[in-house]
């Protein structure tokens, strides 16, 4: 039997796509499915997934916990834990439709919850940190249960299959969001485990990623000093934690985070104005273990918007475009033209230069 993510390190290549409306206008999952479907050949049927923001306006202040369970026993065990730590407003199966190519789906459930105030106080934590820790605890200590996503007014929908089939399976055309990201996976190993598909998420963060980073173990061993447990052994997991550490826990400006992850070359740093040079040099010196090296293109989604980023010497493709209030990013230009044939502006994203899409009125991710 093949080993799953977490039992072995599985690199993978992929396709990614993302669409956002800056004004927060909600639109269905139709476009994102069509965009990722065009890049069918960049995945191999062993994983597809989506992250959607703005889809649960009725429960916007609740953490939406999406779960995979291998069997009902796992579900019962984990629900005891969830009930112990959260007030569950609503819980139930995530609606799916039958798709011939999608088989062996786990039990897929979601809960809209609030942390129990007394427990949060007892642990002396911020609410977000409380939720993040419990998510990691479930993933580590409840075999057969996996937290797919845990943010507010957002959710991840993923599985084993081609992404367009996964989109149909989850009826994503019936959801409406202002930010959608998608992933088609081409892993170099075939565990066929639903939890291993992308996006990988933590709280509001979701990551879709194309590439295989060569700095994995340097990044992992650094991030684990800060209490993270890289249980899946995937690039996507470590990149998510890296963003979480720098953006949420340390409160770094997005620009500094990008500088740390896709640092400019020293020869370019030398040419900066003195003040800027000192700043960039300090970031590269202090955060050198978080430089993400080797090929990658990623889209980090959050409630406030997204950032798309290429590795610093652009070893992976990434294209961006704008049309009115919409902003698009994808592995291939064709995947954008498929849903927006005549963009106002379209460009190939330079290595290490982020494409930042923020909701109107928001200044930082």
């Amino acid at each position, binding site marked *: 039997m093949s080993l799953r993510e977490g039992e072995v*390190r599985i*690199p*993978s*290549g992929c396709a990614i796509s993302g669409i956002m409306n800056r004004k927060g206008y909600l639109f269905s999952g139709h476009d994102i499915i069509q965009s990722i479907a065009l890049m069918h050949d960049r995945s191999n049927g062993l994983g597809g997934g989506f992250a959607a923001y703005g889809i649960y306006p009725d429960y916007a202040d609740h953490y939406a916990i999406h779960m995979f369970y291998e069997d009902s026993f796992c579900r019962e065990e984990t629900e005891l834990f969830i009930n112990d730590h959260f007030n569950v407003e609503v819980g139930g199966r995530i609606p799916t439709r039958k798709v011939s190519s999608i088989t062996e789906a786990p039990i897929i459930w979601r809960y809209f919850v609030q942390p129990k105030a007394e427990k949060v106080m007892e642990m002396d934590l911020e609410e977000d940190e409380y939720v993040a820790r419990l998510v990691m605890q479930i993933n580590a200590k409840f075999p057969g249960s996996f937290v797919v996503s845990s943010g507010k007014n957002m959710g991840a929908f993923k599985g084993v299959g081609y992404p367009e089939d996964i989109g149909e399976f989850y009826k994503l055309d019936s959801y409406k969001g202002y930010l959608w990201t998608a992933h088609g996976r081409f892993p*170099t190993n075939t565990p066929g485990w639903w939890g291993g598909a992308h996006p990988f998420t933590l709280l509001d963060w979701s990551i879709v990623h194309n*590439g*295989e*980073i*060569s*700095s*994995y*173990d*340097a990044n992992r*061993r*650094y991030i*684990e*000093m*800060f209490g993270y447990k890289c249980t899946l052994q995937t690039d996507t997991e470590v990149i998510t934690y890296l963003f979480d550490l720098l953006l949420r826990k*340390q409160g*770094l*400006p997005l620009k*500094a985070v990008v500088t740390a992850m896709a*640092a400019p*070359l*020293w*020869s370019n740093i030398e040419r900066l104005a003195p*003040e800027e040079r*000192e*700043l960039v040099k*300090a*970031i590269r*010196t*202090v*955060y*050198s*273990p978080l*430089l*993400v*090296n*080797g*090929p990658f293109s990623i889209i980090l989604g959050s409630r406030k918007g997204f950032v798309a980023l290429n590795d*610093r*010497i652009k*070893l992976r493709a990434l294209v961006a475009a704008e049309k009115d209030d919409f902003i698009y990013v994808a592995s291939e230009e064709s995947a954008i033209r498929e849903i927006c044939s005549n963009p106002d502006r379209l460009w190939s994203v330079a290595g290490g230069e982020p494409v930042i899409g923020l909701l109107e009125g928001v200044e930082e991710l």
Partner: protein
Amino acid sequence: MKVNYLMPEFLIDRDEQRCTHCRICVHQCANEAHLWNDKKKIVYGEDQNCVNCHRCVATCPTRALRIRNYPLEYKNNAHWTPHYIKSIFKQANSGGILLAGMGCDRPYPVYWDHLLINASQVTNPSIDPLREPMELKTFLGRKPEKLSFQNGKLAEALPPQVELDIPIMFAAMSFGAISLNAMTSLAMAAKEMGTCYNTGEGGLHSSLYQYGENTIVQVASGRFGIDPEYLNAGTAIEIKIGQGAKPGIGGHLPGEKVGMDVSQTRMIPEGSDAISPAPHHDIYSIEDLRQLIYSLKEATNYTKPVAVKIAAVHNSAAIASGIARAGADIIVLDGLRGGTGAAPLRTRDSVGIPIELALAAVDQRLRNESIRNEVSLVVAGSIRCSSDVVKAIALGADACYIGTAALIALGCHMCQKCYTGKCNWGIATQNPKLTKRLDPEEGAERAANLLRAWSREIKEMLGGMGINALESLRGNRLMLRGIDLSERDLAILGVKAAGE
């Protein structure tokens, strides 16, 4: 009749047909292994005095000389090897401690040779250093856990860092142990290559202050040559607690090597033995170490990182954690194979542990305690080539020191007789007739060339792994696999087995 039990170690094989009795070998050999018979007008050899340093072989204009192991065979005995028999003869004769130079030469496992490096294929492109930038820049010093910003600017300045263009420095070798020309060669090469050399414990000769930016000044238990000017002369200060060649004991410099220049630089009387105490007499505990670290920081106004160097011993991981918490900015680990000018042979060969294991254990311990970012880790003692450097960085080192390799670049032939002061290559001696054989300009070029060559090789290997900045290799143990190692070894090194 009194018989000398000790036979010569080497046989001088002189080709009589080629030898012109020109006497160059006689002049070149400070050990008096080549002598002149004035009556017969011929050169002859005194095998007993030969140390096999190859100086005569290299300088003989007619290639008339060969040095061989002395063809003397003891009865086979796997336990009582010639080494032990000869050692007993020597000690029965003298009653003294056996001395040795350079590092441990016993056949313990060399873990570098049991580690293999990864390369990218298909899923992740290798990067071509001839066509793409490849960065080796390294900063040594304390890194804060996070940066704070105020109005888009840094809220506070970084702690002082040593900025290196390459992750290889020249290890501590004192003036006294090595010649001024050897030291000048290393200082000039360090400047040329954007790295540092280390003064060792013998102070800083006045002619070397100009290389301050490329100098790490050492403070050892003998406190030789230390004053405020010295402490402020370099880019960092290193407190030497111990060294890999002789853990647990201090440095030894025989009085014969203490001439006028050494005496002035060390601030001791001419001709006096410079014997450093085993411990620092103001450091009997970790809290005492903290006081010395902060005294040095005060003396230099917090402008220089302070390093603490220890020998790799059984409990290095816990000791290193203590050193980090005592306020050191850099920890230097010196392994079992580390070289020296003079050490008791049994200590050199039997005390301490291999650097590979100590490095892996220390790096992991500091990470387990979430303080790895608070110190830089520099390793010394056994680095022979660029792939050793790559493996050390992947295990978790920030940079490496090379001592033996640097001296070999200057011409050392590893005869291990540094303590005699008769180094025919002008390196480990203070005899002016010998030291002038090493031209500092030429030495600097050779030492710089070595660093240049290794840097190129490191870039090739980095690119092969799909990495274009050294920091992405640092502690990246997935880039290593072990071969022919036990489960326990693999666990301590934190690497998988080849094929996994």
